[in-house]
């Protein structure tokens, strides 16, 4: 189809969709309305289960089954990326040359790393109490680890980050979430039932029954998953080289490679 014809189609379909959406928006209850029946029930249920952060209660207790699906999506996507970004038959690995890092950058990165890591863990641990939880903390912790690339170099990152171990930990924490679900069935209540543990004292770290455990499993799963994801993409961007590309572009490509890589990376992490 020509670009012009496609544009006409988009305009045709888009205007129909726009009309539908606008008509629907005008019929929606006014923004900021007070009627939220499910939301009110969820708040009551969270308080009854002594979970201070209602969102954690919805995610890991009331609708924990959704979170199981979501975790599986993440797990599947990571497995999918590992499979899709594997080294193909006509590719080989070409370790990048060590690169010099400016001293201030190194100092900044290496001093921020532990802070960011601890922040991530803190956010995970307090998921049932304050805003945050396994997802947010997991992503923060995993991204923090990659400050190593900024501060030192790729080889240093590879040493602190044995991808294989993270892949296994990813799978094990996913399994742990599911096993906690099965425990409910074995105990005679229901799948993912939050009745195994005492509910604890409201607003303390051990409150909310199984919520902190599921939260921790998710935190670990997300952190490992993000590490593996980034590792696979970094691998592709830095290390894996196709045979024909290398042969054809051998002259003078290594130097530019290392340089533009480092600059690009600094730019990205900076924002």
């Amino acid at each position: 189809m020509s670009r012009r014809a496609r544009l006409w189609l988009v305009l045709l379909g888009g205007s129909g969709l726009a009309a539908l959406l606008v008509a629907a928006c005008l019929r929606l209850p006014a923004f900021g309305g007070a009627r939220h029946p499910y939301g009110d029930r969820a708040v009551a249920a969270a308080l009854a289960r002594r979970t201070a952060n209602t969102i954690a209660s919805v995610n890991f207790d009331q609708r924990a089954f959704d979170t199981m699906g979501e975790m599986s999506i993440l797990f599947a996507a990571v497995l999918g990326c590992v499979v899709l970004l594997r080294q193909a038959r006509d590719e080989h690995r070409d370790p990048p040359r060590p690169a010099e890092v400016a001293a201030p950058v190194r100092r900044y990165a290496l001093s921020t790393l532990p802070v960011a890591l601890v922040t991530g863990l803190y956010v995970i641990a307090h998921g049932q109490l304050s805003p945050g939880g396994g997802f947010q903390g997991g992503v923060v912790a995993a991204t923090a680890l990659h400050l190593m690339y900024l501060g030192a170099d790729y080889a240093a990152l590879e040493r602190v980050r044995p991808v294989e171990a993270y892949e296994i930990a990813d799978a094990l924490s996913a399994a742990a979430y599911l096993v906690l679900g099965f425990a409910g069935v074995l105990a005679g209540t229901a799948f993912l039932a939050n009745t195994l543990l005492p509910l604890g004292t409201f607003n303390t770290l051990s409150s909310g029954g199984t919520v902190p455990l599921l939260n921790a499993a998710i935190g670990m799963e997300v952190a490992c998953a993000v590490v593996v994801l980034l590792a696979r993409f970094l691998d592709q961007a830095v290390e894996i080289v196709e045979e024909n590309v290398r042969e054809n572009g051998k002259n003078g490509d290594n130097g530019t490679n290392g340089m533009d890589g480092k600059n690009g990376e600094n730019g990205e992490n900076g924002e």
Partner: protein
Amino acid sequence: MADALIVLALLAVAGCATSAVLNRDPTRQALVLAVLGTVLAVLFTVLQAPDVGLSQLAVGSALTPLLIMLTVRKVRRRSAAPKDGPE
């Protein structure tokens, strides 16, 4: 006051989204997406959703743009070398 903040944040989201679509260069788009992620995180916080704001900040303004940049780099590195792929 809260209303004004919400309106402001909403308009900023609309502006960033438009800019993200119209910036056809993927590198610049990734930067705009990072801004969009941050603006969304602000909007969510204003809408009293700090949990979502936090995860949007981590995912939308750091992880997604980072993945896009890495992809761009891989693709550029390929096309910098002479092409002999199946054309």
